């Protein structure tokens, strides 16, 4: 069974979002998503300074199996990316909510965060996908 921390927000496309005290959000892919993809071997991250729009592709994760797009959960400016993933993309498999974080966004409209799924809603969606 995959892990879905209650304190995070989620998207239908399997990203997770954590609000940070400085007003930014940290983004990664969920435990469920990494499990589906299998061993990750390459990650393409957005550069700091880039403007992203919610729902639009802004990163790519590639597993032994296939490439998958990662979408920006909210609009805003990329303020950091997890460069450790360049040499060790498997951090996402090992610790998807911790060391496997992907990038940080300074949201242009913080209200977009509230509109994201909570853990229960995300789990319900995952369960529905299985059937």
């Amino acid at each position, binding site marked *: 069974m995959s892990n879905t921390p209650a304190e995070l927000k989620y998207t239908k496309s399997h990203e997770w979002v954590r609000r940070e005290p400085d007003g930014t959000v940290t983004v990664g892919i969920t435990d469920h998503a990494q499990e589906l993809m299998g061993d990750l*071997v*390459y990650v393409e991250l957005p550069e700091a300074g880039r403007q992203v729009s919610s729902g639009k592709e802004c990163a790519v994760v*590639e597993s032994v199996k296939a490439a998958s797009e990662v979408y920006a959960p909210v609009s805003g400016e990329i303020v950091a990316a997890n460069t450790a993933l360049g040499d060790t993309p498997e951090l996402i498999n090992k610790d998807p909510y911790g060391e496997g974080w992907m990038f940080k966004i300074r949201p242009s409209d913080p209200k977009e965060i509230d509109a994201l799924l909570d853990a229960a809603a995300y789990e319900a969606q995952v369960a529905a996908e299985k059937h």
Partner: protein
Amino acid sequence: MGNRTPLYETHVALKARMVDFGGWDMPLHYGSQIEEHHRVRQDAGMFDVSHMTIVDIKGREVRDFLRLLLANDVAKLQTPGRALYSCMLNTNGGIIDDLIVYFLDDTLFRVVANAATRERDLAWIRNSAELFGGLQIVPRDELAMIAVQGPKAKEKVCRALGDPVRPAEKLKPFHSMTVGEIFISTTGYTGEEGFELIMPSQAARDIWEALRERDVAPAGLGARDTLRLEAGMCLYGQDMDETTTPLESGLGWTVAFDPPDRKFIGRDVLEKQRASGAPRTLVGLVLEEKGVLRSRQKVLCEALGDGEITSGGFSPTLNRSIALARVPAGVSPGMRCRVDVRGKLLEARVVKYPFVRNGKSCLA
């Protein structure tokens, strides 16, 4: 629900991630595909390949029939137990399937072919056999098959299955023997030493468990694919199919043009293609940048034109991306090309394959 092998329950109990493969529910991996890959390269792993098509062909004229049916020449098989890799071609020289054929005795040969091509293969074999009197084409669906591969595979199989199997440890590559109800061959799809074991379905689970007790790691189709790609082995339906000839698929070495008077299906077209030169060729690519090559990506070979990746992926042994690509004739090892990966042009080097053999990199 797809077809299930006799080991289906075993895979589920091992928490395998099951996927559909050519109509079969098969294990993709049992946790980590990369770990399974390394286990095969460094020690021993086992694959349930019971979905493969096993067909016995019996009759007095079986050798003559196979000399017509296959592009490689079964006349090379002179001692019982010998095995041969071959393509089976249509009349245009296109590949209907690739397979391994075993010479068991003068009236019995065994063919092991792909799973997804089963119906097409059987129809083609039966149809081609009509010219020969009294041949029996017998699919052996009651048999299961386990491939045990890796530097320690042979030793572990012999220990797990006991003394009667010992002599198999001395078999050279592409040989086979039958011990009791188990057919043992020194063939595989990983570029490592090992065995492929064919047995009655009801024996499969016990053999699997005996191998597990010897610490042979269950490995899924995912690892099987990265291992065969590193070994530079073609995958039917991806690297070749009915629209490509063996000469365009890096499989010219499997076509026996000698003796010149042997007629085999597809020969005329291949003769012409050999004389004029095949317009396309299969090469290996190594990505020089970060990223992952995938099948169907476009390969740009400067003045020589464009080609396409047929199989691409990440090589766990080399820790970089590799691929097989069908490119215009003239593209050769040492050259450089660029691959269109989601709109970005990434640098790749053309290399000879295999990329990895017996656990070691073959790259210069």
